């Protein structure tokens, strides 16, 4: 078959074997001002540790810009550049295109350089989804777009995004005397949408840095495989989710173990459930009730038992009725409407 796509070589990034085998060098260090217990800051640290020093990072507006990157006290050891809220896709594409042409014309040294653009859920699942989608169709440009999803516009004051879970109390969906549930949209299925909608994209994954090695190896795979790739990371946020910062790690585990946050990867169009999610699907462990996850967070403190049941039903539906559990919301058969709640 003729080759129409010219993909430049990427760095060889073998998976890390264990936590003890991780490199000691840090490329995201002191100088940032993120909140205590911020999981997104951990994602930044792990992301760039996984990528290594020959990397360029583009950061769209959001917590990981505003709180992370301050004039005269940058925490980035690798080159870093701000991009606009909806521009993570365009930043990755433009940077990768520049490297490609400058190397081809001999204007800079020819070597594989990682290009990573990150965005929050507001910048990714809301404003930037068009640009990310476009970049995932440009198969000849190597880049990774990483969406760190703390489930709200957490830097601007905790406003809801298209990635905020149903019913959550945010400053744009605070419950009142008449209306308890002000946010009635279900969370957007970003990774599934990116995987299903972009046949040339070689790697899409969901991660949660409560499982650090798993997350870092997904990042290494995304960078090594070539072409544009996408990773969706769920990041517990003490400020936006309203819990004690020491619980961040546990909150990520609960999201996965309750089945709310399925871990999977789509590598060269092959889908694999990964980590704890794979074990749940194989029946080796049981899903924890979502009640255990929701009631630890202040943003769901206004929930009644009915609300929790509704949430549990939706998660069960995702596991039991979706054609591919937790990934693609297509069903095998058309079903009758469920009986109305009384």
């Amino acid at each position, binding site marked *: 078959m003729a080759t129409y796509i010219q993909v430049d070589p990427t760095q060889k990034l073998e998976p890390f074997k264990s936590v003890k085998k991780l490199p000691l060098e840090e490329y995201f260090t002191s100088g940032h001002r993120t909140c205590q217990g911020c999981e997104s800051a951990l994602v930044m640290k792990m992301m760039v540790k996984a990528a290594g020093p020959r990397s360029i990072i583009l950061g769209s507006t959001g917590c990981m810009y505003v709180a992370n990157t301050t*004039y005269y006290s940058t925490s980035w*050891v690798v080159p870093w550049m*701000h991009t*606009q809220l909806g521009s993570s896709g365009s930043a990755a*594409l433009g940077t990768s295109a520049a490297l490609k*042409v*400058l190397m081809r014309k001999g204007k800079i040294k020819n070597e594989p350089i990682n290009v990573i653009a990150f965005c929050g859920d507001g910048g990714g699942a809301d404003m930037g989804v068009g640009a990310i989608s476009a970049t995932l169709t440009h198969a000849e440009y190597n880049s990774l777009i990483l969406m760190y999803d703390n489930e709200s516009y957490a830097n601007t004051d905790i406003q809801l995004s298209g990635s905020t879970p149903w019913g959550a109390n945010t400053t744009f969906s605070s419950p009142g005397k008449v209306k308890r549930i002000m946010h009635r949209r279900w969370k957007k299925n970003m990774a599934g949408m990116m995987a299903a909608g972009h046949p040339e994209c070689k790697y899409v994954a969901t991660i949660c840095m409560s499982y650090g090695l798993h997350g870092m190896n997904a990042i290494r795979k995304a960078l090594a495989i070539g072409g544009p790739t996408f990773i969706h990371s769920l990041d517990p946020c003490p400020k936006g989710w309203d819990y004690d910062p020491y619980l961040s790690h546990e909150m990520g585990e609960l999201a996965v173990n309750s089945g709310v946050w399925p871990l999977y990867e789509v590598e060269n169009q092959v889908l694999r459930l990964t980590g704890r999610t794979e074990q749940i699907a194989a029946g080796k462990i049981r899903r924890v009730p979502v009640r255990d996850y929701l009631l630890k967070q202040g943003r769901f403190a206004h929930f009644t038992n009915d609300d929790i049941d509704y949430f549990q039903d939706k998660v069960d539906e995702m596991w039991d009725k979706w054609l591919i559990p937790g990934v693609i919301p297509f069903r095998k058969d058309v079903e009758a409407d469920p009986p109305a709640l009384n």
Partner: protein
Amino acid sequence: MATATLVEEQRATDKTALITGSEAIAVACKLADVDVITAYPIRPYDTVMQYICKLVANGEMDCEYIVAEGEHSQFEIVKHACACGARVFCGSSGVGWMYAMEALTVTPALRIPMVAMVGNRALDDPGAFGVEHNDALTVRDLGWQLVWVDSAQEALDTALIAYRVSEDRRIFLPCAISCDGAFLTHSQALVKIPSQEKVNQFLPRYNRADLQLHPDNPITVAPQGNEDWVMEIRRQNYAAMERVSLVLKEAYADFDRIFGRSYGNPFFEEYETEDADIVLMGMGTLSTPVRVGIRKMRTEGKKVGFVRMRWFRPFAAADLAESLGRFKAVGVIDRDYSFGSPYMSGVLTTEVRSAMYSAPGPKPPVLGFIAGLGGREVTVPDVEKVAGAVYQAAEGKSQPLTQWIGLRE
């Protein structure tokens, strides 16, 4: 004489082609060996990208040619490419330019020397394909260099000058080249295409230097500044814009030396002004009917001149005020509007009045005229009507400060 030899040599080596304004800029991109180009469709600027596509497809140009999914991405992609050291080109028209507005805002703030073409077009609503200058003018406060050209030759030449000036380390600001929709983007004229050797002699390679984003230069670009530093950073942009005049003059002088084509005063062009009683002013292809009108009026003994503003940013206020002080009255024709502005005048009129206010010399009355909106033709009788009103003002007779010309009654 050395100059004569150069001109002769120029005639021998330059090729002449019948091309449109858009194609002239595409040829300039090829000659400038642009590295990354992004396209998105909107009339009338899009013709430049159609020509560039052909140049790439025919192997005449080596660049990353990317079709974006919207103007915001279109401008963001090249912004980032330029930060890595790539020479870039982009463009848009009308509401497309407005859709890119956020990207247009950060580009000068990041000191990105992007060169863009604006195929001037009326803003929606209602939809109109014709020329208005409000699109490009929206960035006038942000640090963009803005230039209006009126011929395909000037479009090509100005694109080369724009790269040279924008990419100068003393400047590092973007430049938008405005070409009137249809009248210039789609009109063919004979254009001298300079040789590659001469272009190479005129235009050095883009060197991002200390600001290049690369693992060998691990800088952090545009971290949060806030009240601690933003004011100092703004002041640096102010200083860069202040330096443009000097660097532009150098570039035009070198252009003349290397290509044998002189533009005189880079900032504005004067036509039949030497003995003029009154002058008209305007930007872009308005020059065509105005020049014809002036030639007609001159046969009737009316001494009317024309000043075509070429560079709108930076605005050569002192030079312009000194020049306009020679006349009895000035009539500025705006192909734009600025609703609610002082005296409800157009943007150019307001700027000219502002330039005159602090000038040490004489201050003739400045009348504002709004004409040719939505691509409506500005006719020779329109020009005569404008001149008539300006003559009235010159004679001390009261005139409205803003008049709409060619408006259906």
